């Protein structure tokens, strides 16, 4: 019940942005979702970032915080609301804590992944805005997001080796994550080819749906080692 109320409050604050146009509302939404994660960590006795509920809360929280610091506007508000809405319908129940997630590498892997997801989605929004209105520095966001995602793959690789003795299992999440990384790398390299340079914002716009597919679609459609 508490979880649903906090999620609703975060959605309400973010929706209020359309009326008040105050950036602090993004900050408040992000912090509120952060408080939700801290509350659940104490309640369960371990940060439960392996559940769909908590991973969405983390993603939304980081997205709102990034949107605040990057001075994003209504597009980001709307995207944030869409990202947070599932929290109202997903069960926050935790049956058991899988032993394999009891390692600091789990937090490093998940934390850097979700921060990079947030930056990828924001860079997509900035690129879309650049195409229809005025130029925004989406390549900078893409660069930072890409580096963070590289870090996430690095931590994930070490964790996979320690947990399963494998570095790159051929399973849906690993495969699509590596594809996302290659796609982001390609987007960053388009600027170096004079005939492909103009495609950079279009490729960047494509990143947001790709991120959502890699994050939500792959787990629900294909399963694999990333589904606990």
């Amino acid at each position, binding site marked *: 019940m508490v979880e649903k109320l906090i999620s609703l409050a975060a959605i309400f604050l973010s929706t209020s942005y359309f009326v008040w146009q105050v950036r602090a509302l993004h900050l408040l939404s992000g912090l509120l979702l952060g408080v939700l994660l801290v509350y659940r960590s104490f309640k369960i006795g371990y940060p439960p970032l392996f559940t769909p509920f908590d991973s969405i809360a983390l993603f939304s929280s980081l997205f709102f915080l990034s949107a605040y610091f990057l001075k994003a506007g209504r597009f980001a508000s709307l995207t944030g609301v869409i990202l947070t809405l599932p929290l109202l319908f997903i069960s926050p129940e935790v049956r058991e804590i899988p*032993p*394999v997630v*009891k*390692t600091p*590498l789990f937090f490093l892997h998940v934390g850097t992944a979700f921060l990079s997801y947030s930056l990828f989605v924001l860079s997509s929004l900035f690129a879309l805005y*650049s195409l229809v209105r*005025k*130029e*925004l*520095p*989406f*390549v*900078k966001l893409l*660069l*930072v997001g*890409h*580096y963070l995602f*590289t*870090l996430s793959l*690095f931590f994930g*690789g*070490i*964790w996979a*080796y*320690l*947990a*399963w*003795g*494998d*570095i*790159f*299992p*051929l*399973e*849906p999440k690993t*495969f699509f994550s*590596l*594809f996302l990384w*290659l*796609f982001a*790398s*390609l987007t960053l*390299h*388009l*600027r*170096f*080819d*004079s005939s*492909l*340079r*103009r495609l*950079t*914002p279009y490729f960047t716009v494509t990143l947001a749906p790709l991120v959502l597919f890699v994050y939500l679609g792959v787990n629900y459609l*294909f399963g*694999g*080692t990333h589904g606990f």
Partner: protein
Amino acid sequence: MGFRSVKLFALLTFAFFLFGFTSLFLAGGILHSLEIPRLFPHFSPFLKLGILALFLSLLLISLQTFYCALFNRFISLLFHSFLALSILLVLLFPITSKTFDFYLYPGTFVELGGKRVALKEVSPSDRGLHLKVFIEKNGKREEGEVSFNSPFESDFGTLWFSGIDRGSSYPAFTFKLLEPTPLPRLLFLSALLTVLSGLFYTLSSLKREGRNVHQAGREGAPEANRRAP
């Protein structure tokens, strides 16, 4: 289209997606990379083709990255070289390594490739199960403990606790043994150097990008992001 071409990189990325997705679809489940060489002869011809093409696309991406690195300056050269090496080592690791999958009950052992691997005892704790094991070869024994996320590393190989098989009336503890190989350490060293050099490379790219944006702003160009660095 030269080997440094961005179009070739796009083509290889597409090939990676196409062959990876096909292989995943045909495999119908998780394929652990270390098991692929052992299972390869039993795969269907289409799956064999898909996996070979996937391997080749990644290999070409690695070679292209290394080739491009040669034309770059210090930090960019280091970042791209370590990245290319890391991808290459990821590909080499399953091909050059030998693993054994087996199960044990407490107090039992198994003979594998001239080695004796034994499970001495199992002790549960709030952080999961801890299993005391030893590996013996030519009368020399190395004892240690293995648990989830914490393999037992010895001179005779690395041992992982994979889980509990509840298929029979007596639950069996499943393990994986990797023969001694320097590749994982080399790979993690190369990956560490990639992320370290990547940090400086990203910072210098951000600086350059900022300079381009300011320069474009002064020149009145509306498309600062689309300028070549």
